[in-house]
C-alpha cells in the first residue's frame, strides 16, 4: 500500500499528473478516490474490495473529470483491458495517461463485502482469471497475489439456460428483464459505453423504446450486449451496478463465448489488437445462412 501511496505522491509532486484516480476506504468498503494533493495520497488503498473499474471515469464525456487535468489511474489487469479499449476506439491517447498497475488476486462482488476473500465470495469473473498483472501499466505496484479457487461457474449457469427450450428461455429473460427500470446504471458504469448519445436515448426514431416495459427492456439489453460484442472487458460492473440485480453479466459472457468460439477472440489489453466485429474473414463460418 505504501508503495502505491509513495508513487502517487511522487507523480503529483513531480507534476507528472494533476490528479490520481484510485481507491479509498469509506464507511461501507472501498470507493473511487480523486486525489489532487500529495498530502492526501495516504488515503489511497488497494485490496480485494476495490472492485470498481475506474476506466469508466476516463471517457472524454466526463467533463468534470477532464477538468482535473492529466490523470494517473490505478488499474487492475481487467481494468487495463478497458483502458486498451478506450485507446483502440480513439477515446483516449495512451500518452495522456499514467497507468498505475496493481497486482490483484481477485476481488469480491461488492466493495462492502467481507474483509476476507475466499472461494465463496470471489467474484465469478475472477474465477479462472489468469491475468493478475496489467501489462499496459507504466508502473506496477503491490505483491504478487494468489487467488482463492472460486466456486462460481458462469459457464455452468449458461449451459443450464441453454438446456431450456426456447419458450422457457424467453420467459426466463422476460421475467428477469421485467425488473429493469432503465436507470442505466449498467451503461453508466460501463467503461466501453462511452457514446455521446446512446442508441437507447435516440428518439428519432426510437428503435429502443425508453419505457421500462418488457418489450423496451428486451430490445435494450440485447442491443447493449450486441454493442459490446468483442468489446466487453468483463469487468462485471454492469451486473454489480444493477439495482434490480439482473444477471446482465450472463448476456455479456454469452456474447464473449460466441466471439471466442467463432472468431477465436478473447478480450485483450493490447490496444492494437483488432476486435472481431468490424472486421471479417472471407471464410468466416456461415452454417446458419441458407
Amino acid at each position, binding site marked *: 500500500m505504501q508503495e502505491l501511496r509513495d508513487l502517487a505522491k511522487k507523480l503529483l509532486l513531480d507534476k507528472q499528473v494533476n490528479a490520481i484516480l484510485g481507491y479509498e476506504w469509506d464507511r461501507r468498503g472501498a470507493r473511487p478516490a480523486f486525489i489532487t494533493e500529495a498530502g492526501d495520497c495516504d488515503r489511497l488503498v488497494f485490496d480485494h474490495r476495490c472492485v470498481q473499474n475506474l476506466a469508466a471515469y476516463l471517457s472524454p464525456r466526463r467533463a468534470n473529470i477532464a477538468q482535473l487535468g492529466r490523470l494517473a489511474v490505478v488499474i487492475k489487469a481487467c481494468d487495463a483491458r478497458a483502458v486498451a479499449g478506450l485507446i483502440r476506439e480513439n477515446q483516449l491517447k495512451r500518452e495522456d495517461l499514467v497507468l498505475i498497475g496493481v497486482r490483484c488476486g481477485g476481488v469480491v462482488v461488492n466493495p462492502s463485502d467481507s474483509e476476507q476473500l475466499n472461494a465463496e465470495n470471489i467474484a465469478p469473473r475472477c474465477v479462472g482469471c489468469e491475468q493478475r498483472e496489467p501489462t499496459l501499466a507504466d508502473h506496477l505496484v503491490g505483491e504478487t497475489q494468489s487467488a482463492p479457487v472460486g466456486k462460481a461457474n458462469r459457464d455452468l449457469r*449458461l449451459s443450464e*439456460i*441453454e438446456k*431450456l427450450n*426456447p*419458450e*422457457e*428461455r*424467453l*420467459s*426466463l*429473460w*422476460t421475467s428477469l*428483464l*421485467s425488473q429493469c427500470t432503465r436507470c442505466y446504471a449498467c451503461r453508466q458504469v460501463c467503461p466501453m459505453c462511452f457514446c455521446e448519445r446512446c*442508441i437507447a436515448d435516440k428518439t428519432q426514431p426510437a*428503435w*429502443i*423504446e425508453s*419505457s421500462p*416495459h*418488457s*418489450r*423496451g*427492456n*428486451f*430490445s435494450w439489453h*440485447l*442491443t447493449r*450486449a*450486441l454493442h459490446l*460484442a468483442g468489446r466487453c472487458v468483463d469487468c462485471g460492473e454492469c451486473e454489480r451496478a444493477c439495482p434490480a440485480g439482473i444477471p446482465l453479466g450472463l*448476456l455479456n459472457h*454469452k*456474447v464473449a463465448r*460466441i*466471439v471466442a468460439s*467463432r*472468431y477465436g477472440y478473447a478480450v485483450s489489453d493490447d490496444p492494437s489488437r483488432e476486435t*472481431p*466485429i*468490424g*472486421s*471479417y*474473414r*472471407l471464410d*468466416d*463460418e*456461415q452454417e*446458419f*445462412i*441458407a
Partner: protein
Amino acid sequence: MSDLFEPNIVAFVCNWCTYTGADLAGTSRLTMAPNVRIIRLPCTGRIDTLFILKAFERGADGVIVSGCHPADCHYTAGNYHARRRFAVFRELMEFAGIDPQRVTFSWVSASEGGKWAEVVNNATEQVRRLGPFQKYPSPAAHAGEIACKS
C-alpha cells in the same frame, strides 16, 4: 382462404442480389407463399439487428435477411460485415429465447429466383409450424402496480 395460420414475415434484403433475385422469381412466374413482405435496403451491410427486433415488436412472426453471396457483394464487403453481425446476433437471440427458426438468413443472388422462392416457402412453412409469435415481450402492465378496476 383456408383456416391455416398465415404468418406475417418481413424480409430485409439487399437491392443488388436478393431484391433482383426476387424480381427474377417474378419474371419467371415462380409461385410462392404470399406471407413474405420485402423491405429493400442497399446492402446486407445496412441491415441492422434493430430492424429485426423492431419487426418482432410490431408483431412479425418471422424475419428473413438475405443478400449477396460471399465475394459477390455489390459493395465488396458489406455482406461479410453483416455475416459476423448476424452470427453473433442469432446466437444471442437464441440464448434469449427467440427460436432461431423464426429468423432465416440466406444468400440469394440476382440469378437465383428459384432459390428465393424456396427461401420464402421454407420460412413460411417453418414459421407456420411454430405458430404466431405471441410470447415476444410486450408492454404489458408492470407486475407490482395496483391494477385498474375491471
